[in-house]
């Protein structure tokens, strides 16, 4: 990373208007991207910033500013590719940065600055290309002016503008280009001219991630900064009644102990002293209303609730009458536990609070919300709060909380203590500190025709809403949180079902729940793909053929399903004791089919191989798409075999990786990913690999054992 000069501010302001992204109101100069501990910035290099997404210095350095953040999914590389394909830049001069909070970086669809919903590539596909194309046109205009030629005679190549024998580098033209008026119309290159799009590029963030130089929130270090460790209530939502910090303050290195709304923070010279200080605190907690919350008894209540009629998410025909005609009816019910995101980097946030400004460094998927939340706590205007987003050590949704919980907590510590602090959560804080994939219960009654195909479908879903009361509350309509029913109410399997009712009971519980990689599809795909599998086997039909019949009017599902089945050799002989299971699911505008090869030995489920096919439309960075499929599949296996958070007396029972296991290398299967050649609408890649994995494994387990899985996780089959 290089330093982005302060002088860019004016250029960026101009840029916002230029691209029609609206007037830039609250705009903070992009991150002082300095070496940690340095406060001075280098001399600004005169630069050309045709828009908010890139600037070119007179030294030829090209800074790309990302509206979306890098948390492993590869957007650091993909958005840069989009610019580069239009700009003809020289790769070695490109430097990538996360953008600060600001109007130009709002999601093109969601209206706020967010990395989520597997939407970064498709939503930025035009905007980032346009940013590159605008810059290129201005550089050509500058070159033409400098050479005294018609712009039409100029071409660009590897960071140079060339006309006949004359050539000039982008750096040399930057100052001149900055003085030229914006082009009235920007034309994007045809696909035939793409050099990177659809072909790919090695990850631009990888070099820093193999030698320890990549900086994550956890790595922020500044002179005078203290590390803060927080004692949180063991019961979710509990508060401090009283505390005695005498022993904590006696720990060498401990500098201060402060109470904050969420607990007691110990501030010390370093983490270890702070952690010892935390252990020495004597706190009396007021457990509050959740002291009796128990996830097992809660699920019993969910089951009772599921027997009653919920609010309609889908209602066609008359399902009750259809199911009482005396035909064959298949019934099933499913329980899904709470899940923790458990990114490798525990939550953390660094805050430097001054009299009239607040600087924040953290890895976040929601910088704009974090800025607003911090400002509100401090009584500041948002523009008085800067957010430097560094690399995220995994996100999976956890670093996008509507309450900005970890940022808010750090800001409270800074405010209460008056110190420059880095708040660091332990793994236990992270595992027990709230925000989970909600627990769900599903109850189904399906009527089938003489051939075993579904004709009537009564489906009851019970669980908490993640959108209600958040900035995404518009996604709750008529009492239906769309994420609770996605993948069911809109399932392609419902197309031919004449009588259907999908009812939702949204429960209100004190447990904070949140989107989780692939959101509602984490459970809905499991239900749909295992029950369809059951319908197939009960009808005596091959699960693949059965799906093909039901999905006949859904070509993209079929394409993914068929490619996965073909590459896996569906129906062909497997090693003794190995069984195939299959699933296909649409999520985040992409279609993914998977075939898994599983064995069950001594009741233990082993996943040997996963064959995956995805139709995401144009795959901008094909190897990046494959990497996301691998990633999603392994995430899905962890969820299937191990994922479970339980509450007892209001306390999360899991604490660390020994009792919340994550799949390891020795359990990691061979993964074979294929991309459907597709010119259909672009979809996402970061999440859609997850949903089919668990049901495909469960279907293979059925093939192996004759047992239907209704209650993940299922590492052991008893």
């Amino acid at each position, binding site marked *: 990373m290089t330093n982005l000069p302060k002088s860019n501010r004016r250029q960026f302001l101009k840029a916002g208007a230029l691209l029609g992204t609206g007037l830039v109101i609250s705009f903070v100069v992009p991150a002082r991207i300095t070496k940690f501990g340095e406060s001075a910035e280098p001399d600004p290099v005169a630069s050309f910033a045709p828009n908010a997404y890139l600037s070119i210095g007179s030294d030829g350095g090209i800074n790309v500013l990302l509206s979306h953040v890098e948390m492993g999914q590869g957007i650091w590389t993909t958005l840069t590719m989009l610019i580069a394909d239009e700009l003809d830049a020289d790769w070695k001069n490109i430097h990538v940065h996360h953008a600060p909070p600001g109007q130009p970086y709002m999601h093109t669809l969601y209206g706020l600055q967010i990395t989520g919903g597997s939407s970064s590539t498709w939503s930025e596909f035009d905007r980032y290309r346009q940013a590159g194309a605008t810059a290129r046109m201005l550089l050509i205009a500058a070159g033409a002016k400098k050479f005294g030629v018609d712009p039409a005679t100029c071409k660009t190549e590897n960071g140079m503008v060339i006309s006949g024998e004359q050539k000039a580098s982008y750096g040399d033209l930057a100052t001149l280009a900055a003085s030229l008026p914006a082009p009235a119309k920007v034309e994007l290159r045809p696909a035939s001219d793409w050099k990177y799009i659809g072909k790919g590029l090695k990850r631009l963030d990888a070099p820093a991630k193999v030698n*320890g130089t990549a900086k994550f929130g956890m790595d922020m270090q500044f002179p005078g900064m203290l590390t803060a460790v927080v004692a949180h209530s063991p019961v979710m939502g509990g508060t401090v009644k009283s505390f005695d910090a005498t022993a904590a303050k006696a720990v060498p290195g401990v500098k201060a102990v402060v109470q904050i709304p969420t607990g007691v923070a110990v501030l010390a010279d370093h983490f270890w002293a702070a952690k010892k200080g935390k252990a020495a605190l004597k706190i009396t907690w007021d457990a509050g209303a959740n002291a009796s919350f128990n996830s097992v008894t809660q699920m019993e209540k969910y089951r009772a609730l599921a027997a009653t009629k919920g609010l309609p998410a889908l209602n066609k025909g008359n399902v009750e009458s259809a199911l009482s005609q005396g035909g064959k009816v298949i019934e099933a019910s499913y329980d899904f536990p709470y899940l923790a995101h458990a990114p490798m980097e525990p939550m953390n946030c660094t805050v430097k609070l001054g009299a009239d400004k607040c600087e924040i460094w953290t890895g976040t998927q929601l910088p704009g919300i974090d800025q607003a939340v911090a400002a509100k706590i401090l009584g500041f205007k948002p523009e008085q709060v800067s957010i430097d987003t560094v690399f995220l050590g995994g996100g999976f949704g956890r670093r996008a909380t509507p309450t900005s919980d970890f940022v808010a907590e750090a800001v409270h510590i800074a405010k209460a203590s008056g110190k420059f602090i880095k708040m660091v959560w332990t793994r236990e804080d992270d595992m027990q500190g709230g925000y989970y994939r909600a627990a769900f219960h599903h109850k189904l009654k399906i009527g089938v025709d003489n051939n075993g195909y579904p004709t009537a479908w009564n489906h009851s879903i019970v669980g908490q809403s993640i959108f209600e009361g958040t900035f995404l509350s518009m996604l709750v309509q008529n009492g239906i949180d769309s994420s609770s029913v996605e993948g069911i109410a809109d399932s392609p399997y419902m197309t031919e079902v004449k009588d259907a009712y999908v009812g939702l009971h949204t429960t209100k519980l004190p447990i904070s729940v949140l989107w989780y990689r692939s959101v509602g599809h984490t459970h809905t795909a499991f239900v749909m793909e295992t029950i369809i599998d059951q319908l197939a086997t009960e009808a005596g039909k091959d699960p693949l053929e059965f799906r093909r019949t039901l999905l006949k009017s859904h070509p993209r599902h079929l394409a993914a399903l068929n490619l996965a089945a073909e590459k896996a050799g569906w129906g062909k002989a497997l090693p003794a004791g190995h069984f195939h299971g299959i699933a296909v699911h649409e999520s985040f505008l992409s279609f993914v089919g998977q075939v898994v090869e599983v064995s069950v030995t001594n009741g233990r489920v082993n996943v040997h191989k996963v064959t995956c096919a995805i139709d995401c439309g144009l795959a901008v960075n094909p190897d990046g798409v494959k990497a996301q499929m691998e990633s999603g599949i392994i995430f899905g296996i962890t969820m299937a075999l191990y994922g479970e958070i339980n509450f007892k007396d209001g306390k999360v029972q899991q604490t660390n990786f020994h009792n919340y296991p994550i799949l390891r290398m020795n359990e990691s299967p061979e993964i074979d990913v294929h991309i459907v050649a597709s010119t259909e609408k672009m979809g996402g890649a970061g999440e859609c690999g997850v949903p089919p994995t668990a049901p495909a494994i469960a279907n293979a387990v059925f093939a192996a054992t004759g047992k239907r899985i209704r209650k993940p996780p299922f590492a052991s089959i008893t």
Partner: protein
Amino acid sequence: MVYKLKVNKKDYSVDATPDMPLLWVLRDLLGLTGTKFGCGMAQCGACTVHLEGEAVRSCVTLIARAAGKEVTTIEGLSPDSKHPLQVAWLEEDTPQCGYCQSGQIMAAAVLLRENADPTDEDIDHAMSGNICRCGTYPRIRKAIHLAAKLQKQGGTK
């Protein structure tokens, strides 16, 4: 208490309590933040460094054990980021979020030193102490095989 440490061939002396884990000495006292904190209980391997060449979990290895011995962190694995593993890691586009990768590479380095041509099973035996939540295991596996080839081509390192 003052301890003498040798980290990445450089001598340091640090003032710390004897119960301070090497991880926090490296990160918070020496500023070597390439070594990561993931679990604090030797479950995840993100904090893996070499102590006298062995892939210890620095979150549970106390400074008292490391004192006077050779410590190597990701920052010191190679002078130019050209260790066969680092080269192979880039070639296979291995990292995703990247947080666990320092530990992964330090663990793999011991494997490659002791076994120039590891099988998939050897890789399982060496690498299953390092968790990657992004699921980069298939690429780590490929990268280790590639690094073994590169190491052979480049002679023993």
